[in-house]
């Protein structure tokens, strides 16, 4: 049991020493959404994920936000939380009605 523990610690330390640290990993996770990382970087990130639940979550959550964000406006289109005041709407209609569509 003790031997297993020590083996695990050595594996974790080895991976840690051969992969970017978590602060760097968070930067790389964002960058990966802009342009694909090189193969060697991808491998190192994968390797890091093997020993780090936090970076796995971070990347997964960033990808989720990336996928979800485009729905922001669609999501509140039907019932906008923010509204234009009635005064502003009246002004708007007046302005539009006063406009000759052909000019």
């Amino acid at each position, binding site marked *: 049991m003790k031997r297993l523990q020590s083996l695990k610690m050595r594996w974790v330390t080895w991976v840690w020493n051969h992969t970017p*640290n978590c602060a760097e990993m968070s930067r790389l996770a964002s960058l990966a959404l802009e342009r694909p990382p090189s193969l060697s970087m991808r491998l190192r990130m994968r390797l890091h994920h093997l020993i780090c639940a936090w970076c796995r979550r971070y990347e997964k959550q960033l990808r989720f936000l990336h996928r979800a964000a485009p729905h922001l406006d669609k999501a509140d289109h039907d019932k906008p939380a923010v509204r234009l005041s009635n005064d502003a709407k009246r002004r708007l209609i007046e302005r539009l009605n006063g406009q000759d569509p052909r000019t």
Partner: protein
Amino acid sequence: MDAPSQLQIRAAAKPVVTPSGGGGAADPERWVEQHADALYQYALLRLRNPQKAEDAVQETYLAALRGANRFEGRSAERTWLVGILRNKIFDQYRTIGRETSFTDLGFYGDEERDRFLPDGVFAGGWIHELGPVEWKDPAAHCDRAPFWETFRSCTMKLPHKVAAVFTMREVDGVDSKEICDILNISENNLWVMLHRARMALRRCLETHWFTKPS
């Protein structure tokens, strides 16, 4: 995500005349009734200023009125109007980028540092208790209006320029190169700003939505 709206803008610019009977596309009262709130909300998130947002909505309607006969009715009227508004907003960004600078590297440079170990063998690693927590089935939240309200308010907490970059990239789906062109910033600075925006937004959503005691 931006492909259809790009097409949309091109379609709107193409001078194709269609019969606009049956109420017609250009019916100001119905237009305002149906779309003004949504357009205003869209503009406010991106311009951060009620007056500017109102003006942008008005300009959008005026432009739409002038181009009403070009509206092909192929896609939703809302999409068409949002496309016009989006271009107006990007024009304003363009002006800001030309006259001052759209780069903001001050925001969130250090804020997350306290979540990483400062030294030791695992320096730069997440402090376990402060690292990202598991989000249970996040996709299920996308159907819920309060989730988007939280998303919106978290975006509003970002500094304006950082938020503008984030919304352009993530919400409007504009690609990096095009954002750099519009805002007149370097790709490297864009990446730094996006990284910090995502980090701050992730943390905000985690605090105010995913781990909020109900």
